[in-house]
């Protein structure tokens, strides 16, 4: 509104008020002098003004509409004179259309008098024409037809305005005010204020029969000259209302409120203005219930301020919105008999019941929806603010504010016994906390305590400025300060347990994912893993919405990082490999949009995707993630490759890693490593030769490690792992060159303790990876020469492939027939098969724990036989019968991209035990 004002009226702003009056006068002149040529005038209104030598008039949309209407009325008059019903009918339609526009512009409920006048005129003329039967007969056929249809239309139309017409007939003030009707509204409002300033209007003001109802009507003024004026006037009217607060009754506040609300969403309604109007109304509300009702509308209006889906709410409005919500809560706590509900349409006059009314008062509203919306707006604002600016940081500081609100709402809802709603709010809180490590959480807590002190001061001032304006003043009952437990974990536990108890499916699933994420963040891998597997989230993540899928991916990524930090390489790899198999990590984690070469996205998709993005501060560092993933893959894959030198295509652990390795091997020159990938590749080259020190040095030089909290210990662990795998690789590669090898030498070579070396080598022997045995007295490894000949090796490969074939056949059969108990019989031990056999095919039912455990056993069985069913695509998914917890779960966010070919990212790297 302000800008509109500036662009249009900026040049003569100092003459503001006089301009306005001129305007009024001119209009009066114009409209009265308008004659048949009005069309021309209409089109060239400004020109003619200029040529008349008048001052250039800035005319508002409203004025224009009125002019148009007046012109139409004149046309009608002309038509009447010549008894031309056809054109009269046209004009009538036109005036009705114009009426709509006028109403929209003025936002008034009341129909302009001009229009009523025209109606009355028409009616009279019609009656006259109908009475005159002879004239009627003489009419041309088209004219008569038009007359008849006119009669019907008018009858129908006039019914709507019956009251007004009657009123007008009783009191045809029109003679006096004549064509100045359109100003009547302003005049009415301005009444005595305008009295002195606007002598022209005296007549009109006194003539109009306005009543008390219109007292507050100034607010609806959207005259564009009015923004500054308007506020001024409002202040005045506020003053006025203070002078005689007794004049304000529940009825007129309510009426005004209804008007303002009705204007919501109409074209030309100033959003900010509406907010201000409502704020004012809120202050003058007579009963707490009414105040509440207005507050709800006010909050809705504040949401409306944000124009589109993509933009976010202005921050100051957001803050005010939060404050308003707190006031709502204040009211609700103070008057526990007020019930907020969005299910029933409350009685019209429900809010009339005063504060001392004893029964329950129902007010329409939905607290949870408001809280969620506020959160969404907060999220959106963080999405769109550039994360590298100060603004972003400032915005982040508002988080505690929201947390307070959510906490209060939750408490209120819990008291009210609406646990389901409370759990939704709790989820919002969880989602703000789950990604924060303890340090960040502490920082937030400190911030919340600090800012609150500052805020208190501010608020006090604000309170003063608001002064005694509010009729219903509510003490600040709800705490404005968030109470955070010392430990983020305790907070999470508290919230999450509430959600598990009362939440609906989606809320629970999301809370569970947040819980997992948070556990993983705190390095509690086993807890997080158990939660994940027991909840069966993996099984139905496909059916969830995209946002939940993103959350799932985030949780998985964090779980992978956690596994790595605690030294569980195989687990870490199985968590992360899914994310990396499609090469769309950014999209899967909603941390940026990657450009796909083969697939153009429609703008629509792109916008959707943009809306899903995580704000910067919630990102999981992608470099770290990639480093961890590749290192895990390296640690698993290098010895694996060394062990299977014979065309070991069938035993690929990480396809991604293999591909990268191939690419890097194809390079003619290998330069010094630059990015994460290069580093890991360089380390891989060193590791293949058994040079653990170099491998470690290369990886150590990555600078992502500084992101880790317990960097030292993680690197220590990493070093130990690298040594171990180097030893294994070395043994695999060079067994054929040795007949015996002493333990001492090995320990020296790989800088391991004797016990460790012994344990590692023993493990290899037991697993029959290494054909050798210890010679205990001399501490030597004696290698047995059981190297298979090429023919034998190929024969083994053949049998292995055959067994894969047989297995996939069985699986195909199983999926076809649905039963396949026979297979589970073979895979499981007898007891279990008996158990499932009894259940028939529906083994998932009732056996929730069962499945969890199986998944678990699959999960830790990490290094077992991994049959390369990855190539089999999506086909083997799901039929694994719980053999591998991490199997067959294509990464989520699937629905987001319509990328057909890559959609079945089937991850059968899972383990069959």
């Amino acid at each position, binding site marked *: 509104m302000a800008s509109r004002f500036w662009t249009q009226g900026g040049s003569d702003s100092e003459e503001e008020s006089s301009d306005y009056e001129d305007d009024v006068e001119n209009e009066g002149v114009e409209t009265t002098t308008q004659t048949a040529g009005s069309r021309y005038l209409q089109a060239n209104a400004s020109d003619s003004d200029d040529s008349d030598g008048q001052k250039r008039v800035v005319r508002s949309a409203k004025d224009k509409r009125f002019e148009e209407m007046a012109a139409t009325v004149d046309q009608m008059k002309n038509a009447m004179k010549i008894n031309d019903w056809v054109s009269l009918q046209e004009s009538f339609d036109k005036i009705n259309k114009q009426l709509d526009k006028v109403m929209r512009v003025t936002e008034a409920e009341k129909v302009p008098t001009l229009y009523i006048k025209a109606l009355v005129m028409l009616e009279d003329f019609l009656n006259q024409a109908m009475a005159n039967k002879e004239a009627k007969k003489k009419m041309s056929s088209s004219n008569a037809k038009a007359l008849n249809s006119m009669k019907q239309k008018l009858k129908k139309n006039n019914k709507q305005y019956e009251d007004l017409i009657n009123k007008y007939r009783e009191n045809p003030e029109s003679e006096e005010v004549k064509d100045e009707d359109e100003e009547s509204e302003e005049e009415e409002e301005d009444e005595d204020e305008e009295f002195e300033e606007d002598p022209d209007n005296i007549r009109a003001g006194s003539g109009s029969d306005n009543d008390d109802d219109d007292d507050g009507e100034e607010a609806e003024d959207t005259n564009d000259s009015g923004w500054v004026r308007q506020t001024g006037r409002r202040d005045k009217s506020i003053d006025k209302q203070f002078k005689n607060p007794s004049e304000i009754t529940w009825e007129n506040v309510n009426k005004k409120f209804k008007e303002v609300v009705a204007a919501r969403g109409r074209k030309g309604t100033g959003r900010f203005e509406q907010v201000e109007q409502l704020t004012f109304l809120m202050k003058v509300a007579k009963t707490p219930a009414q105040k509440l009702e207005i507050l709800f509308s006010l909050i809705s209006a504040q949401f409306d301020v944000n124009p589109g889906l993509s933009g976010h709410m202005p921050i100051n409005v957001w803050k005010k919105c939060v404050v308003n919500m707190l006031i709502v809560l204040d009211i609700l706590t103070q008057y526990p008999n007020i019930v907020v509900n969005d299910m029933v349409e409350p009685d019209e006059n429900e809010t009339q019941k005063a504060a001392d009314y004893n029964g329950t008062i129902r007010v329409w509203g939905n607290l949870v929806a408001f809280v969620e919306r506020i959160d969404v707006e907060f999220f959106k604002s963080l999405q769109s603010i550039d994360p590298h600016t100060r603004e972003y940081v400032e915005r982040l500081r508002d988080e505690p504010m929201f947390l307070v609100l959510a906490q209060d709402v939750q408490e209120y809802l819990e008291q009210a016994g609406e646990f389901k709603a409370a759990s939704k709010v709790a989820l919002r809180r969880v989602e703000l906390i789950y990604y924060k490590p303890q340090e960040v959480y502490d920082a937030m807590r400190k911030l919340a305590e600090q800012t609150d002190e500052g805020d208190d001061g501010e608020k006090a001032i604000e309170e003063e400025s608001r002064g005694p304006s509010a009729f219903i003043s509510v003490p600040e009952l709800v705490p404005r300060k968030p109470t955070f437990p010392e430990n983020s974990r305790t907070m999470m536990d508290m919230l999450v347990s509430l959600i598990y108890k009362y939440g609906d499916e989606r809320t629970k699933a999301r809370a569970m994912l947040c819980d997992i994420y948070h556990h993983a963040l705190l390095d509690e891998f*086993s807890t997080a893993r158990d939660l994940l597997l*027991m909840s069966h989230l993996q099984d139905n993540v496909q059916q969830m919405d995209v946002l939940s899928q993103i959350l799932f991916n985030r949780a998985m990524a964090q779980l992978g990082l956690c596994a790595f930090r605690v030294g569980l390489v195989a687990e870490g790899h199985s968590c992360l490999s899914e994310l990396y198999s499609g090469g769309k990590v950014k999209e899967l984690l909603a941390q940026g949009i990657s450009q796909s070469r083969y697939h153009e996205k429609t703008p629509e998709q792109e916008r959707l995707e943009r809306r899903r993005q995580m704000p910067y501060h919630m990102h999981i560092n992608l470099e770290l993630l990639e480093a961890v993933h590749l290192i895990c893959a390296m640690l698993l894959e290098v010895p694996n490759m060394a062990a299977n030198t014979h065309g070991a295509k069938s035993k690929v652990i990480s396809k991604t890693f293999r591909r990268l390795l191939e690419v890097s091997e194809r390079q003619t020159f290998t330069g010094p490593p630059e990015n994460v990938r290069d580093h890991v590749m360089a380390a891989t080259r060193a590791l293949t030769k058994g040079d653990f020190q170099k491998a470690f040095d290369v990886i150590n030089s990555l600078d992502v490690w500084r992101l880790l909290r317990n960097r030292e210990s993680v690197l220590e662990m990493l070093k130990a792992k690298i040594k171990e795998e180097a030893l294994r690789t070395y043994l695999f590669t060079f067994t054929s060159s040795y007949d015996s090898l002493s333990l001492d030498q090995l320990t020296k070579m790989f800088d391991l303790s004797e*016990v460790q070396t*012994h*344990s590692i080598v*023993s*493990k290899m*022997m*037991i697993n029959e990876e290494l*054909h050798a*045995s*210890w*010679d*205990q*007295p001399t501490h030597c490894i*004696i290698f*047995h020469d*059981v190297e*298979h000949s090429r023919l*034998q090796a190929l*024969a*083994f490969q053949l*049998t*292995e492939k*055959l*067994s894969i074939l*047989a297995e996939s*056949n*069985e699986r195909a*059969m199983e999926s*076809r*027939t649905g039963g396949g108990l*026979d297979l589970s019989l*073979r895979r*499981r*031990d007898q*007891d*279990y098969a008996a*158990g499932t056999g009894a*259940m028939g095919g529906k083994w998932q*039912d*009732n*056996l*929730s*724990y*069962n499945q*969890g*455990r*199986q998944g*678990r*056993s699959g999960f*830790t*069985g990490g290094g077992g036989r991994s049959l390369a069913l990855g190539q089999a695509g999506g086909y083997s998914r799901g039929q694994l019968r719980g053999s591998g917890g991490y199997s067959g779960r294509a990464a989520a966010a699937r629905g987001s991209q319509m990328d057909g070919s890559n959609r079945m990212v089937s991850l059968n790297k899972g383990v069959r*035990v």
Partner: protein
Amino acid sequence: MATYDLTQRIAPNLDRHLVFPLLEFLQERQMYPDEQILKSKIELLNKTNMVDYAMDIHKSLYHTEDVPQDMVERRVEVVARLKALEERAAPIVSFLQNPNSFQDLRANDQHYNLQMLHDRYQIGPDQIEALYQYAKFQFECGNYSGAADYLYQYRALCTNSERRLSALWGKMAAEILMQNWDIALEELNQLKEKVDDPKSFTSPLNQMQSRIWLMHWSLFIFFNHDNGRTLIIDLFNQDKYLNAIQTNAPHLLRYLATAFIVNKRRRPQFKDFIKVIQQEQNSYKDPITEFLACVYVNYDFDGAQKKMKECEEVSFIQTILVILNDPFLGKRVEDSNFATVPLRDEFLENARLFIFETYCRIHQRIDMAVLAEKLNLNYEEAQRWIVNLIRNSKLDAKIDAKSGTVIMEPTHPNVYEQLIDHTKGLSGRTYKLVGQLLEHAQTQAAR
């Protein structure tokens, strides 16, 4: 000393009366101060009706002859209630005690029985309910045999499935407390059927809880019954039960682990079990599971040997301490005055075998002295032990007396044999698959 005592974790899953033997055992082993145990005994008895016994304990605890007033009052109350219940249950009790009328009941026809009782003896559901209450009261009073009898008969007459279930529990507890292991085992099997029946529980959580109870109660039976050590594996190692253990009662792993060690013929399941132990390492750990982890997960023979060595030093060793101090594992056989713990010896022997077996698999030549040390035996004993093994053809090895070493025969399966093995299974599987397919096709065609 009491680090590995599980009583606190077990007790919540037992009936009050079942906790009693545990406390007795603890008292006997002098693990806790007497006073503490007596106090907890009184606490235990407070909720039961064994007031007299509680009074006795009170006396011995405070060395007085006075008994607190509330106990006396409670006694009066209990006696009165007993009288009342006895009266109410009198008709049915007299009916049941009369062998002639008892024959009127038909074994498999409950409706008939009820009808008959109602018509001929005027015994309605009220009386039957009274029987249940009476039996329960008897149990509370410590009269287990009476309770067991009544409950047995009640079950024949009861129609309410929930009541039947609790009658089963009660019967089993009574049998356990009377140390009728065979009957208790029968009850256990019945109860197990009920517990596994998905229809009898509304939520999986309830079912799991019942399983955990069942497992706890069954400990009494399994470690006292002759065949118990095999049965315990059968029960606990079922997936459903293993789940329950992992989710809510990881301490039961100790008993399962012991059973596995003592039982030699359970190899296939044993491997899976090792995985479970590995997973649960962070939630439950005690010397027994650690021992298994040492041998089978980390191949840390020195660690295992340490545990074993400690075992040999009779008492103050962890592993054995656990065994001796655990009420179930340390059940003494008290015939003659010579108190031995049979389970302990068996455990040691088998643990030794475990280590040796694994050790031999990865060695070609072992110094006898070292071996003896690892097995916690002296040289002579070790030699004798190994000779025995070789003689029983459990071990494919020879002793080189000159250098004092054992030499293993390298065992490498023939490549061709391996290949044949692999493919044999395949043809069987394929054959079966075809069979299935045909069957399926036929049923389809039939439709």
